[in-house]
């Protein structure tokens, strides 16, 4: 049997050499996310000014999918406005439900590499952990 795997280079690379996996100095907001079924954990920190995500980082422990997905997400949203981040988050969740158009997946840039997760119910929670945490942070920011 061929080893069909979604552990493509994008995922393994972000897992082994994350760009944003470190402590963030002086974050404006920090939130923890956990996925109890696998025990994946992340703690996401963001810096926000004038509605723009100026920096972000995470620390965590978990499977390659959860950690790479969080890293890819940060790479995508840093430098964007909160509204853009919200939009991307919606697109990502749409992609995971196999409902996104090719254009929408294109918009997700590297995060599009996780498209195949939509066929793996057991791993969906891992892939969306970072995005769910981000959405929850944005909700809190909106209330602030």
């Amino acid at each position, binding site marked *: 049997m061929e080893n069909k795997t979604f552990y493509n280079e994008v995922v*393994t690379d972000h897992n082994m050499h994350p760009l944003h996996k470190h402590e963030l100095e002086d974050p404006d907001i920090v939130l923890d996310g956990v996925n109890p079924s696998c025990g994946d954990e992340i703690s996401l920190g963001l810096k926000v000014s004038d509605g723009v995500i100026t920096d972000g980082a995470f620390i965590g422990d978990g499977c390659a999918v959860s950690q790479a997905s969080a890293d890819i997400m940060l790479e995508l949203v840093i430098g964007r406005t909160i509204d853009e981040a919200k939009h991307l988050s919606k697109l990502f969740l749409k992609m995971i439900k196999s409902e996104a158009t090719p254009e929408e997946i294109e918009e997700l840039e590297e995060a599009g590499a996780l498209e195949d997760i939509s066929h793996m119910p057991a791993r969906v929670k891992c892939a969306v952990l970072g995005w769910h945490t981000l959405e929850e942070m944005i909700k809190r920011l909106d209330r602030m």
Partner: protein
Amino acid sequence: MTMDTKINEYRKMFPLLSDDIAYLDNAATTQKPECVLDAVRKYYERDNANPFRGVYDLSERATESYENARKAVADFIGAGSSSEIVFVRNATEALNLLAYSWCEDNISEGDEIVVSVMEHHSDFLPWKYMAEKKGAKLVRLEPEKSGAVTDEALDRALSGKTKIVALTQVSNVLGYANDMAHIAERIHENGALFVVDGAQSVPHMKVDVKQLGCDFLAFSGHKMYAPMGIGVLYGKMEHLEKMRPFMYGGEMIQTVHWDRVTYAEVPHRFEAGTVNVSGAVGLSEAISFINNTGWEFIRSREALLTKKAMEGMKQIPGIGILGSEKVQDHEGIITFTVDGVHPHDVADILGKSGVCIRAGHHCAQPLMDFLGVKSTNRVSFAFYNTEEEVDRFLNELSKVRGLMGYGE
């Protein structure tokens, strides 16, 4: 008959086993042979009625099926009588029944309950809950990293206040089989009762409660070729007859009036509501299946597979095996880590190639803490596994680090 043909004959008895998958998660649950599935089906086709409740022939047959199964279990584990066998859903329910019922009347403030750190959550949480409820102390019994419980460790854990000790015969993570008879003696000298979690031992070795010298034994049918939803609590009659009910309702009473209730005799006192007759029938058939297959054959097969797997794993760079280095200390269970790769990724990669292994904390988080690991992978065998399956497992395992971006 060569060994290969013999194993293939056995594999044909298990409808789910095929060449598509290598099922190596037998400590979680085993597959079911046709004879067990047939026994369940035949019960429903021929003998099904609510047992104990009808006086008509059919109900009698249902009752008889159930009680015959009880007798088969009693014989299988060497119990003094069938009445010492309480049917429950699984080992978890057996241990909850015991902890709730026994501790209620026998544990008071300041008493001590001893539990090892390698217990499955189902042999830890009920005791922890009851200890807290009763103001008793939950005392940690620490095994060696291999899973072996030494006399020194026992001496440290036991005291004049110890009332009961709960210990697994075979750890579902480390696979080590402790010498329960020896441990039982020490515990009894100390005046405490001894509860054995047999979930991982009863399916893989001859367990005789008299030889073990335990007061209670809990196990699940589904880990020994029987259906899910049937399990056993064995208890010595002298203890069971003093215990209060765990659940209340139908079938567990003698007489019920508005102001006065008397409970049924043991074991029915602990089996409230309509019971799982088909499960008990399936368990009884699974016991016959084990007896016909023979312990010698089962044990030699499982030892061979474990040895082959462990020796192969030691050749693969980056694999760390938990517990003892010695093959004979692993009862068909090998738990391991892969350097730099999360266990869920390992299980997922193997799963894509049809190799089924476990990932996670194996419901033994205190043990994970004790060993200093977060989560791990586990491969576990039943006698029906083949050497080809072990090779397939080893081959896929050797590719994992490469697939995850680590150079050779």
